[in-house]
């Protein structure tokens, strides 16, 4: 995946996170490495929605063992996970 595509992916995911979750936290400025749980911007059911979104939008079948903070815990993690797992 080229740099432009990664940039697009990052922008897409950021837009989704902002639109779906950050409206409840208007004071939070989210950086790419910030951890969602630590910031409190996504709760347990929010993660369900996030994983579903990733599956649907990028055609990825997420395995239960893959639902970790390493893969879904921050914007950086999400970008890396989707980049690695989405069908080329």
């Amino acid at each position, binding site marked *: 995946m080229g740099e432009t595509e990664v940039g697009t992916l990052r922008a897409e995911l950021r837009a989704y996170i902002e*639109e*779906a979750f*950050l*409206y*409840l936290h*208007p004071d939070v400025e989210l950086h790419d490495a910030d951890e969602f749980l630590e910031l409190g911007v996504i*709760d*347990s*059911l929010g*993660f*369900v*929605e*996030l*994983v*579903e979104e990733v*599956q*649907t939008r990028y055609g990825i079948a*997420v*395995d*239960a063992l*893959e*639902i970790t903070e390493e893969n879904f815990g921050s914007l950086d993690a999400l970008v890396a996970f989707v980049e690695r797992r989405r069908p080329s």
Partner: protein
Amino acid sequence: MCGIAGIVRADAAALVAEPQLRRMAAALRHRGPDGWGMARAAGAGLVSTRLAIFDLPGGWQPMRGERGTLLVYNGEVYNHLELRGRLVGPFATTSDTEVVHRLLEHDGLAALDRLNGQFAFAWWEPAQRRLTLVRDRFGVRPLHWAALPDGGIAFASEAKALFASGEAAAAPDLAGIDEVFTTWGARAPRTAFAGVAQLPPGGLLVWEDGEVVARRTWWAPDYETDGAAPAAEELSELLADAVRLRLRADVPVGTYLSGGLDSSLITALAQQASDHELRTFSVAFHDARYDERAFQQQVAAALGTRHHVVEIGPHEIADGFRAVVAHAETPLIRTAPVPLYLLAQATRAHGITVVATGEGADELFWGYDLFKETALRELHTREPARAEALLDELYPYLDVPAERRGPAWKRFFFEAGAPVDPLFSHQPRIAATGIVRAFYRPELAQALDGINGEDPLARLRAELPLAFARWSPLERAAYLELTTLLAPNLLSSQGDRVAMAHGVEGRFPFLDHRVFAHAAALPPERKLAPGLREKAELRALAERLLPRAVVERPKQPYRAPAVTPFFGAHAPAWVEERLEARALDEVGLFEPARVEGLLRRCRTGKASGFREGMALVGILSTQVWHECFCGTGAADRWPVERAEPRVRLEAAEGITSQ
């Protein structure tokens, strides 16, 4: 079925003004459109608005007993004929009210155990200056009260009559509202209004000469039985009898037919016991995801009932929403009461004022998905792989299609609390509902933190009965469903309030206390059978009475659209008006920037999930509720009843009937 209200003063010489009583009666007119009555005695005033069901020419209230006590009574005692047979006559009326009154005068509160029905009443004993308020076992009928500054007390079926009297002012109770957004309803004695309490289900309150001298429950659910499992045939006989008793009325009785097992079973039993053509009434949705009309039609055709359908399209939910909130007197988190409000309207228009329904079966016989989830989550602690495989077959709370229920969903379920937590069964629902609280203004969140000991879950845990610890996980779940969902929400916002809005009385054979005792004594596998087959005992009975397709269909939760009715070209203008920053600032509970974020998602069709639907309905209903009761000028809008009372009792005078 009726509305009741009254005021008693600490000062026995103080008169209760007639205009006050007339305003209380007017506020409850929808509950009793057939006429009203009033009584005034030393330091006391009582009113009743009547929906005539038994003894149409007689049976007016307030009623004065042989011993000079006064009774205003809302509801029905279905075994009144049997009870009457054991009393010495003569009787002035053929009503159940007189039977209850006679029993109270003879046996006092010991009489309550013999009453089979759904009722709320106020009993005034002038000699002792004693007022006793009583509510039925499951809380089918409402009863609110407010302590007055002079030591007196005001009571009413609905809080609006307290406000109409001028004795209580409407203001939000933050902790009560917080309970709505935690467990789906404010739990007695709490209400959404500060200074207004409600009697708990199976509760009573005694006020005597200036002070409340007793507050206790006279009945509570118990799952500890003497050990003998009921015989298989017992349910059939019991339920048939519960239905037979609930068809008693001097007006025609119909049923609500959802197309599910419970209401279909009640309809079948009602058809067997009825001496006239049974009318059935159903809600159908244009949106196929909510619609059950195919099953409704099958049952109606198989049983030969005269069937009526109310169609819910894109407009009806929004159009009826504000009226429903005004009747419910609480913020809501679902729109599901609105179709039932419209169903009651149609039922009334067809001349039917009494309907039997299947309410209560899911709580007694473990029909809800919540029971299966609890069983699975408990199983998961021992056999995770098996529990995860079984979860795939469940319909979860989130409104997502089956193919999108993935591993994250499972994980949420299985990590939502530990079995040692008394609220284990309800943690997924509590977590899902928590989204509404995320919209609170910071100052509201801080205020709630500062209300010592008022955290809804801490209060719930602290008030669990001692026996709770000895019950099984599913019995605990059933108890929590009865106390947190059935009474505060399903029987109220979705039951009594929306039916009585049109003067229609709902009757619930499953909530006959004998049926409860039977269900509580059943071994677990006769409720939730192996393979997670819900309501096994009921299903076995239904096989003899209903089409196979209806008996075998899986449970479909009753739901209604939450977001789509309020947005788009057809949406009424008041929706956006109530949700704009200025209106939110006026009410002061929700943060405008967050609400605007939700609205953006709603307007663009992105808020399609269950949680955002709850958030929207919660916020919108709170805004509507506040405007209706606490807004500018709301306190001055209560009309005075102008019609002459059918009964007027004045101290030291006889009854004047008109």
